[in-house]
């Protein structure tokens, strides 16, 4: 077991966003988290990287057991070293080139020497098909290219698991494909991922395990086949019916 997460709770004021969320994953797993907006899936992902501090819960990651609510600075640093985060809005460093975006965490964060970091950075950019854009600033790249650099930045850190927070939600529809293709390629190479997404096709085709969340709890989980073809819970059925009308009612798209 690579990662085991137990009992994550989080409230914003009076609003309880996460109520006892559990999850486990093995190396090479691709877990997608689906759910209506407001279900807490993004907050859950952010708690795993301490971008939000959970009110309760534990995480076991590669042998270390950490309390999500009271982790020390050192523990947080070690988790961030073993995980990487891909943001919905890319969040590339605006004043750094594509290559610098990828290498900054290695040099300034881990003290790697520049030449070594650039070698890793170039490999990561090559993997996402953007090596020839290494010297470009984010403002000079399309949204899809920026997100691919964001993925390269995550890959370069060689983390145990990459967390994707709705990586294609901010993209123009015609740019979604290039990002999903990169993610699919990573999945095939055995990179462990947790992906919060609204891309049902990606979830269905790539995920090894699908989690459906609503109102701060995991409503149902299983293999992608189980969730997409034989959902048990009423809540899951209703959600899938809304986002995948064509699979449920023939011709629904033509009305």
């Amino acid at each position, binding site marked *: 077991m690579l990662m085991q997460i137990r009992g994550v709770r989080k409230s914003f004021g009076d609003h309880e966003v996460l109520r006892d969320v559990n999850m486990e994953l093995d190396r090479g797993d691709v877990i997608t988290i689906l759910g209506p907006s407001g279900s807490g899936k993004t907050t859950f992902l952010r708690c795993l990287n301490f971008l939000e501090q959970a009110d309760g819960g534990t995480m076991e990651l590669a042998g270390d057991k950490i309390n999500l609510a009271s982790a020390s600075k050192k523990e947080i*640093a070690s988790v961030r070293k073993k995980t990487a985060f891909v943001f919905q809005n890319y969040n590339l460093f605006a004043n750094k080139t594509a290559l610098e975006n990828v290498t900054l965490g290695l040099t300034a964060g881990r003290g790697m020497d520049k030449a070594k970091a650039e070698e890793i950075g170039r490999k990561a950019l090559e993997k996402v098909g953007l090596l020839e854009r290494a010297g470009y600033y984010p403002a000079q790249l399309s949204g899809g290219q920026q997100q691919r650099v964001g993925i390269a930045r995550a890959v370069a850190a060689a983390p145990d698991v990459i967390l994707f927070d709705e990586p294609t939600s901010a993209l123009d529809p015609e740019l979604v494909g290039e990002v999903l293709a990169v993610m699919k390629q990573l999945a095939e190479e055995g990179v462990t991922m947790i992906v919060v997404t609204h891309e049902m096709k990606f979830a269905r085709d790539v995920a090894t395990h699908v989690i459906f969340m609503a109102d701060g709890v995991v409503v149902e989980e299983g293999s992608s086949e189980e969730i997409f073809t034989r959902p048990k819970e009423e809540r899951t059925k209703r959600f899938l019916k809304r986002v995948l009308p064509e699979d449920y009612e023939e011709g629904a798209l033509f009305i």
Partner: protein
Amino acid sequence: MELDYEFMQKTFFEVWQGAGVTLSLTALSLLIATAPAFYLAVLRLRGSTASRSIARLYVSFVRGTPIILQILLLYSLLPSILNVLVKAAGLDFNIFESVSPFWYAVVVFSLNTTALLAEVFRSALLAIPKGQLEAGLSIGLSELTTYVRVIIPQALVVALPNICNVTVNLIKGTSLAFLMTVKDVMAIGKVSASYGYNYIEAYVDVFVVYLVLCSIVQVLYRFAELRLGAFRGNDWN
């Protein structure tokens, strides 16, 4: 009305000799103000409730009073206070004779500029999206490193037009230093004029000098903005 062109020409070059004082007063004040202004800005954004209020109070004190009053008040107050301190320390040192009024002007304008720059820095830091810090943290940078390498360089570019504003206003504002008998552009112009009552000629000279100085400064800032802001892409300007 007949202008004395010969006087005007002669005075023009005399007035230029004050440009050094005007510019060094401006540059020193900016330089001295930068670090405390940045500290105040960070306090206002991230400090405790008490330090936030203190920072805000300071800014509103400075902004809420005319600079001419700040000059007159501090110029009356500072030498006397320093004198008391020197005497209390038992030193044999005559404050009133040994400290050039230039330094009192530096103090006044530094205090003033600190408040103005604090506001400029604060709004510039606020303009940088929170995601930049999150991205830095997520790849294992410390908060300080993320600020130094990512957020401050971006905020500086955002702040440059306003820093330019502060600088130009400061150049013009230092003309009030003649009240403290500092021999800047304005003071030299006034003194020259008073010999033969050639006020119009002298003031036109002074006018031109300030115009030239401020224009040069604006061009320099524009250049710096283009250079430092290159990452924003070419279509930005």
